[in-house]
Every structure is written in C-alpha cells, then in structure tokens.
C-alpha cells in the first residue's frame, strides 16, 4: 500500500510534441493518499485511460515522474509495481478454477502452498466466493468474474493500489449497485487504495473519496464529491458532475454588479476588468437540486412555468421556463404533484448560486 | 525482455530463415550446374566451386527434344487454378454464408453435418478418386481438357473455401444482415449488398488457399490429362527420368514457385493489418 504521487506527469504519443494539443495527458501534479478511493472521471478520449496506463506501467510517460511511496517507479515495469487491475471486460484464466485463479499471483511469486491456501480462503470469504472456489472460472457470471479479477489483486499483500478500469460496464444495473457496495466494503476492510476510471459521474460520486475530472487531457478539477458538486471549478465540471447538469444563466454587467432579467439575483462585478476587446462571459451556475420551487404567491427570486416533467422514480426533473425565455431545470420529489403549465416561484440560497467568468469559477466573488 | 530470451529468439529466427531459404539457394546454385559439377560432390558457388552453365534455364524455354517448354503448362496451370478457385470461391462463399446464417435440416442431418460433409472431402486420398474421376470425365468427354480439371479441382477446393468462409462469416455479426433485411433487402440482397462488400479479407484468404492447393496439385493433373492439357507440376515430373537433370529441375522449381511468392506478399499484408482475424479460425 502506498501513497501515489504524480509529479508533473504528462504524456504525448508524439515523439516531439509541439503544443498543448499534442498531449494526450497534459502535465499534472496530484497526490493520492494511501487507503482512499479515487475516481478518474471524464468523457471518452479525455486522457483518463492514458493516466491509468501510466500508473499501471503499460505506457511510459513522456514527461514527469510517478512516485509510489516517494520511490520513483516511472520506468519500473508493470510486474514490479505491485498494482492490481480490474478491466472493463472480465479477465480470468479460463482454464483454471476460481481457486486456481485466486492462487495464481501468489504462485507466480513463489509463495508456499499453505500460505497460498490461507490467503485464498481469506479473500474468497471477503468476496463471498467460497461456494464457487472449485468451479471453472469461465462458468461464472460477469460480475463474479470481475470479483475474481479483483480477488487476484487482493490476495497479494504487497499491492500499492487497485486500478479499476470501468469495471461495471458489462454488469446489469441492479448488480452494479451490489458490486459497487462490495468494492467500497473491501476498501474499508483492507484499506487498499483504489482508483476507478469511469465516464459515469454517479458511479464516480458514489464510489470515490476523491474525484479527478478530466477533459481533453487536462485535469479540470480534483476534489471530494461534495466539492465537485457544490463548487465546480468550471462550467465543464458543472456540466459533467450532476444530472441534470448545472443551470447556467448568463449575467450582464450592470450598474457595478452582474445581474440578469431572468431572476432577481446579482453578483458583484470583478474589480479587474478584462483588457482590450476581450469581453468576458459572465454566468451564474445553479444546481437543479438547489432550486427550491415554492408557491407562486410566496416570496421568490423569480417565477417559471413548467414545460416538462420528467419522472425518474423517487424524484423528478422539472423544466421551467422563465418569463424572459430562460430555461432552467429543478430537481424535486414533489414532481408527482405538479402538472404542465403550473407556475411556481423559485428560491435559491445565495451561496448556491456561483459566478463563472469565462467558464471558470470566480472564487473571490462568491 | 531479458537478454537471454532475446538472443534465443534471434537465433531461432535466424536458424529458421536459413532452413527456409536453404533449398532455394541450393536449387539456385544447382540450376547453373552441369553433370560434371554435380557428380564431383556437393558444390555451392559458381565460378569458385564450378563452372556455371545456363542449360538448366534455357532448357525450360526450348522446345521438344532439347528440353521442355514451360510456357504452355504455365498458362494451363494458371487457367485451371484461377477458374477452379473462382468457381469454388463463389459456390463456397454462398454455401458458407447459408451455413452460418440459416438452419438446414434433412432428417438427422444438420448444419454441422453438412459442414463436415464439405470438409470431409479433403480426407479422401486422391488415389481413391483417380479411376472413378477418369471414367466420369471420359463419359463427359472432358478428359485432357481444362474443363475436366476445373471440375475435379472444384471438388478439391470447395471444401477449403467453405471452411475458411464459414469461419469468416461466423465473425460477422448477424445483426448486419438482419439490419439489411429490415432496411428492405431480401436475404439474397442482404448478402450481395451488405455482407459481400465486407468480406474482402475472408475472400482473400480463402482465395489464396484455393490458389495454393490448386496450383500445387499434382495427382489429378497427372492422371486426368494426356497430351493436350498439361499443368506445371506434371511437366516438372516429365523431367524426372532415370537420369535426372538436376539443373533443369532446379530452375523449374524456382520458376514455379515465383508466382505464389507474390501471393505470400499479399497474404502478409492482410495479416499484419489484423484484418485476417475472423477470416481464419
């Protein structure tokens, strides 16, 4: 188990990168602590897989260093890195039984049979696979196979981190839920660092202690799920985290402050105005979850008419059209009591309305 | 990769390359020898070990008594091989497609059995068929003709085409043809408009195997012809007299190998692109 440090780590598949856009992963500094869960989140092609491959040792980075417990492992081969990995599609040794699969990494390391037996038994119990130990691994279902993959990492006591490369893709939604919980429990019980790569923000949120949001090879924001949710550093994070995405309402500079006709909410104008012709874009970001719908007669910062109600089960998403034509979405559990065409008042707690200047969170002015 | 392993691999590749090339180099050297250069023991390098002579090569393009002319057999061989391969490929592709997409049932006979029937044709040793084929072609008046040989070769090559193409089609998702049908194609239309254009790698592999096995067949070419039609392998054995002219044989061998060496280049190209996956399984 180890602390993982990415020190100015970057990668370009070109031998001689000319500019920023030649990097599949732009240089980044990150520190991951021992024992926590992390998620690398982003759309396909964002560089998350490249980062994972660098950590696993499949891709040698073109720039920077990778440290495991302050040891430089940048050029250490995969087999010597003490990591474990679960892949998108289950990888098992098809000719072996579950027991033999779990024992394999230990056999490769020349461990004594009695020790192997003990470790395999422990891990099988942990994974609830005791009953299947002597079944051929290939006959198990996809989620069980993923557990075996995981188990092959867990049996080793020297593992620095477990890398999970979209491991839930091939799993049914209902099973996903169970497997995710299993992963968290294992993390808790073993204290192993886990790094999950995913495109699914809800998966990342529910799994990770800390999430690294990436786009176009660049780390957008790294923080706890709570931070990402309540303080998205830019409009992309606001969009990518949370479903439906953050409402973005354009603000105009007006009488020393930023305001909109849509709702009655203002933000202070930044002191340093941009130079030259570069007119900045000012936006207010409000999470749909933070919009409270109240009776149209009550106190509110604006009113909107319902144009769409999406029923998602316990909660629903209501789309409101403000008089100015601005459309915002709100998430509520009272959707079943609403009908199209109803008008509601809107309330937003001031701290939940965030100012973005040119797409970046203006931390000083919130 | 450690050094020991790397060295081992290099040595292995080197050794095998020498093994592969050796008979060709020997044939090349021999093709420039004459009787004296051969009877005095093994010799290798012209001018150094022996005085080169070009009689091996000239005899291949001279007529009648002075040698054998390989131009005619070359054309006949090419014609028979190409036509038979083409016919086998067409029939085999259709059958393979049918076997991979539809269920056939004839009593207890099912798809797997039909496929096995096709492939089992290759188990039959050629000797079994020599006399019956002879009689059959005689009845058809097709002895000693290109047509007759094509007929026999189709029986020989069809199983190969079916084998390769069945595996290839198994790798093409059946959703593709279903989609074509939902888009308004008949099953036959779906095959021609959608599946066939996407089967080039499989067709190349199957075609290549047909060409190889057709081009190299000796036995039927030998038994079912008299004088009018003569294929390349048969004309080389006409040099296999009690006094064997090693030089002509060697030159001949090199020439007959040449066209298929080109095939090897094509095959390598497809293989390294990975497009052959699914084409062979």
């Amino acid at each position, binding site marked *: 188990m180890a602390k993982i440090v990415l020190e100015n780590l970057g990668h370009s598949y070109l031998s001689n990168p000319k500019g920023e856009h030649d990097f599949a992963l732009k240089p980044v500094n990150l520190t991951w602590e021992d024992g926590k869960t992390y998620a690398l989140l982003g759309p396909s092609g964002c560089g998350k897989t490249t980062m994972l491959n660098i950590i696993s040792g499949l891709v040698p980075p073109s720039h920077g260093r990778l440290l495991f417990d302050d040891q430089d492992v940048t050029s250490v081969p995969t087999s010597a890195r003490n990591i474990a990995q679960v892949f998108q599609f289950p990888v098992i040794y098809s000719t072996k039984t579950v027991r033999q699969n779990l024992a394999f990494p230990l056999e490769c390391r020349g461990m004594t049979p009695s020790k192997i037996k003990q470790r395999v038994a422990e891990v099988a119990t942990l994974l609830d696979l005791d009953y299947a130990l002597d079944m051929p691994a290939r006959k198990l279902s996809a989620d069980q196979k993923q557990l075996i993959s995981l188990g092959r990492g867990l049996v080793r006591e020297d593992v620095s981190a477990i890398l999970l490369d979209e491991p839930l893709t091939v799993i049914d939604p209902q099973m996903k839920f169970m497997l995710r919980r299993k992963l968290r429990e294992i993390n808790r019980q073993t204290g192993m660092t886990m790094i999950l790569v995913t495109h699914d923000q809800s998966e990342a949120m529910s799994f990770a202690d800390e999430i690294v949001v990436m786009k176009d090879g660049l780390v957008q924001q790294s923080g706890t799920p709570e931070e990402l949710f309540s303080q998205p550093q830019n409009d992309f994070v606001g969009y990518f985290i949370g479903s439906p995405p953050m409402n973005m309402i354009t603000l105009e500079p007006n009488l020393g402050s930023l305001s909109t006709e849509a709702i009655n909410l203002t933000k202070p104008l930044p002191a340093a105005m941009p130079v030259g012709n570069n007119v900045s874009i000012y936006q207010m970001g409000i999470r749909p979850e933070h919009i409270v719908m109240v009776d149209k007669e009550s106190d509110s910062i604006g009113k909107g008419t319902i144009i769409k109600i999406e029923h998602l089960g316990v909660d629903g998403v209501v789309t409101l059209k403000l008089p100015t034509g601005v459309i915002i979405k709100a998430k509520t559990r009272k959707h079943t009591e609403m009908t199209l065409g109803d008008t509601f008042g809107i309330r937003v707690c001031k701290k939940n309305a965030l100012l973005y200047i040119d797409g970046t969170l203006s931390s000083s002015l919130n | 990769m450690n050094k020991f392993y790397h060295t081992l691999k290099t040595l292995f590749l080197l050794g095998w390359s020498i093994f592969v090339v050796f008979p060709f180099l020997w044939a090349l050297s021999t093709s420039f020898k004459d*009787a*004296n250069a*051969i*009877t*005095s*023991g093994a010799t290798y390098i012209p001018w150094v070990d022996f005085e080169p002579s070009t009689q091996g090569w000239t005899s291949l393009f*001279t*007529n*009648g*008594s002075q*040698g*054998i*002319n390989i*131009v*005619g*057999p070359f054309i*006949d061989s090419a014609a028979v091989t190409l036509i038979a391969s083409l016919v086998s490929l067409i029939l085999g592709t259709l059958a393979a497609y049918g076997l991979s997409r539809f269920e056939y049932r004839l009593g207890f006979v099912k798809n797997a059995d039909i496929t096995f029937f096709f492939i089992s044709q290759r188990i039959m040793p050629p000797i079994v068929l*020599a*006399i019956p084929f*002879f*009689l059959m072609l*005689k009845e058809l008046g097709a*002895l*000693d003709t290109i047509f007759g040989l094509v007929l026999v070769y189709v029986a020989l090559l069809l199983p190969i085409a079916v084998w390769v193409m069945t595996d290839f089609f198994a790798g093409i998702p059946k959703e593709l043809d279903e989609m074509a049908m939902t888009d308004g194609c008949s099953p036959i239309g779906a095959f021609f408009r959608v599946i066939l254009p996407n089967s080039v790698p499989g067709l190349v592999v199957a075609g290549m195997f047909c060409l190889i096995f057709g081009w190299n067949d000796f036995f039927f070419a*030998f*038994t079912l*012809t*008299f*004088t*009018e*039609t*003569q294929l390349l392998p048969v*004309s080389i*054995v*006409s*040099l*296999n*007299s*009690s*006094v*064997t*002219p090693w030089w002509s044989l060697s030159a001949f061998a090199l020439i007959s190998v040449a066209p298929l060496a080109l095939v090897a280049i094509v095959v390598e190209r497809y293989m390294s692109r990975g497009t052959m996956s699914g084409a062979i399984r």
Partner: protein
Amino acid sequence: MIKISKFIGPATLLALAVAAATPAMAKDYTQFGIEKDLPGTCSYEATDAKDYSGRSLNVITHAIPVIGEPTALHAEQFAALTGAEVNVVHVPFGDLFQRIMIPFQSDQNAYDVLFYASLWIGDFNRFLEPVPQKYIDSTGMSDVTDSFTGVATWNGEMIQYPMDGDRHYLKYRTDIFDNAEVQAKFLADTGSALTVPETWEDYNKVAAYFNDRDWDGDGELNYGSAEVAKRDDLMFSAFISRAAPYAKHPDVKGGFFFDLETMEPLINSPGFVRGLQLFVDAQKSFPPGGNNFGLGDEIFSFGGGQTLMSYSWDDAYVQANQKDSRIRNMVAAAPLPGAGEVWNRDTGTWDTFATPNRAPYMTWGWSSAVSQMSEEKEMAFDFLCFFANEANAKNDLQIGRFGVNPYRNEHLDVDFWKGQGWEDKTAESYVSTLSDMEESQNRVFDLRVPGVSQFMSSMANGVAEAMAGQKSAQDALDGVAKEWAEITERIGKDRLRAAYANVVKLEDNEG
C-alpha cells in the same frame, strides 16, 4: 502440352520451311542433326515423301531424357517432314504403366503410340496392334537381333516395335583393375589376384576391398559398388541379375520364376535366397545412400567416377565414356558375374560348376507399340519406323542420355564405337560382352505375363525388406512366394501359364 508443330522455335521453323519448299535438293537432311540420311524403308527421304498434314498423333513416352528426349526429337523431325501434328507426353517410369493402362481399360483412345518397358507385354498384348507385314519386312527390322525380335513377339505375332536393346552386364574401372601397383597391393592384402569378378562372391569381395578409399586420388572417397537398390525404381532387375546364375541351371528346363507345369513360384528356392543374401551383403560396399539409389543415382555414381564397379543397363557405361567425362576410356565391360554353385531344382541339390555358371539377364528394355484403338495406325507405324530408321538409330546410340542401346546386328561393330572416340578395350569389351549374350544358351528373360507389375512389386518389396534388415533373406522370399501364389490364384493358373510359356520358350531356346 509439348506440341511440336506449334511451339517450334522460329529459326528451326525457317530451316524446315526451306527444307520443305525445296524437295529437289532435299537429299541433305543434316539440319536435323544427323550426319547423313541412310537408305532404308523409313529413311528421311522416304518419310519426307509422306504427307500427314492436318492429322495428329498422340505419343506417350518416358520422361526426359531417357527415351523421352529421342521421342521428342524424332517427333519434331517427323512433324516437320510430314506436316503432322505430334503431341508427346513425358511420364516418369513409376507412373508410365498406369498412364497407359487406365485408358486401355476404360476404352479411351488416349495415345496412338506408346513407348514403354518391354516386360509389360503380358498386360498390354490385348490392346496392341500387330506390326503389319510391310514393317516386318523393312530394312531396319530385318537386322534386329533374334533376342529382341523375340522380346517383341507374343504368341507368334510381333506386336511391339523394337527400337532399343537392353541387357545387364558388368562395368568396371580399368584404371584400377589393370593397374599393376594396385594389383600387387591387392594380392598382398588378400592373398588372391585382382581379376574381373567371375562370381558374385568375388564381386562382393572386390567391392568391399575398394570401398571407402580414395583410390583415384581426387580427394573424395570412392566406393566399391553402385547398384540400383531403391525399391520402386528398377531394383527388381538388379536382383534378378544377381540371383540368375544361382537359380538358372543350364540343364533344368521349364521355367525360372515358376515351374511351368505346376505354376508354383520358385522365387524362394535356395538359388534366389543365395542371390538375395549376396545382395544384402553387398550393401556395405555401396556409397552413402547407395541402398536408396535409383538408376539415375547409379549412373551418376559409376558414370561420375565415384564407384569401382556397377552392373545394369548401358547408360552408366555410355555416360562414363561421354566426351566431357573424367573417366572416359577408363572403363570396360564384362559379362555379369556367375556362380560356382547352382541350385538344381530337379534334383534338389547344389551343383558345383568349375567354370562359373553364367546366366545373362536379357532384362527388359524400352519398346514401342501402336494402340489397337488408334485411328491413325498407319501414321503411327510410320512414325515408329522413322524413329528406328538406320540414321536415327545410329545417331541415338551415340548419346548416352537417350538410353537407346544396340539392338541390331550392325550396332555390334567395334569400329562403329571406336569411331565415337572409344579406345580399344572400352569398345572391344563392350561389343564382345553384348555379342556373347546373344550367343548364350542360358539366358534369363523377364517375367512377361499379365500382372507382371504385381509380381515384381511384391518381389521388390520382399527384397527391400531383406535389404533393410527387417527380415532374413529366406523369410522375405518366402513371403514373396506366398504373395506370388495369391496373385497366381487371382489371375488364374492357366492364363498365367499360357503367357509364361512364351518366356520359357525363349529361355529354353525354342523360340
């Protein structure tokens, strides 16, 4: 696909055109590669007068060059002279039989003219056209020796067209045998004088002595004996040569391979077993790989100077005496070794002979014939007659790889061979060896019966098993005898006897 008339080189074509266009000057046929046209029934001139244009002739022959090359050459000439199209197909020896037989048995008129091994007459006779009287009366035919006329005759009718003469005899290196130094050393080492082997025991002894030494001083090892020992090649002939003197008693009549009366196989009789044992023993004097030698290997080995002695057809002898040969005129011919003891099956004892018993093997050779099914019989016989005309025969004899050997009396002429550049001993020993065989009263002929291939293949298999050490000589031949009895059973004794009688008649000098 060798269509002579179609693929002729432009130069030849021009020459032929000139020849054809000017019949008045046509007495000169040297452009065909002969010294001069010789008068005769089917001379160039006579053939030139015929017109077969628009007609075609299909010929099957042996692979190039042996027989195959002269066939192609004469076909080319015949086509040029008569305007016929002559298609020639060349087939390796091992497959020649079936290539001819399959069409025969299935009534397919595939070939007009056939060149093949004369011993197949027993199988082919029903399909062959008898030689018309006018060709029997031809100048060439009248000079053919009695042996070879006999070989061509079946039930009193000539159905094969003789164009080659064959027999086995001994070939040896005179530079060793006549070398005083070597003779002295041999005497000192073995206690007996070095002479040309009189018996097969002698042969083996001499071969063993000279094996594995570099006696010609060229830096490469030399060996004792080169023999045809590859099973499916012509090994059966070698075996017959070796076994004949032990099994063919000059006083015992009525069959060599079979007892003509009972049609019991004699192949496992003590004479044959002795012959086989000596064959097996001889292997240690073979060059490396010698027990897999085909005829071609034997020719390369002896003709190339690698081995001291050899016996079989003329090819190696002629090869050794080619103009560019390294051992030209260092070889001589002698009769096949004989036997000091001969098995007498009448008495069931070994008879001792003071002068070794010789039993010259008039082994099969090349012969030709016209198919009964042919629709061009006249042209076919004309072609054969032309093939064997005086000028062609003489020309072909001179070229070793052609495989055409003396079969007319005029060929057995020392001066003719001296004219080829052969020196005295080489030419004289050759002619006398061949002539003596014609005179012999104890000749052995091939088993010219239906199913001969089965008998020979069975025998070759048994011999091969013994040679490979899989079985003892006696066991191997017992096995062969058993198979022979089975084959006899299948063919039918009477049918077999009727055919075999033809052979016995020749052997017993009644033919």
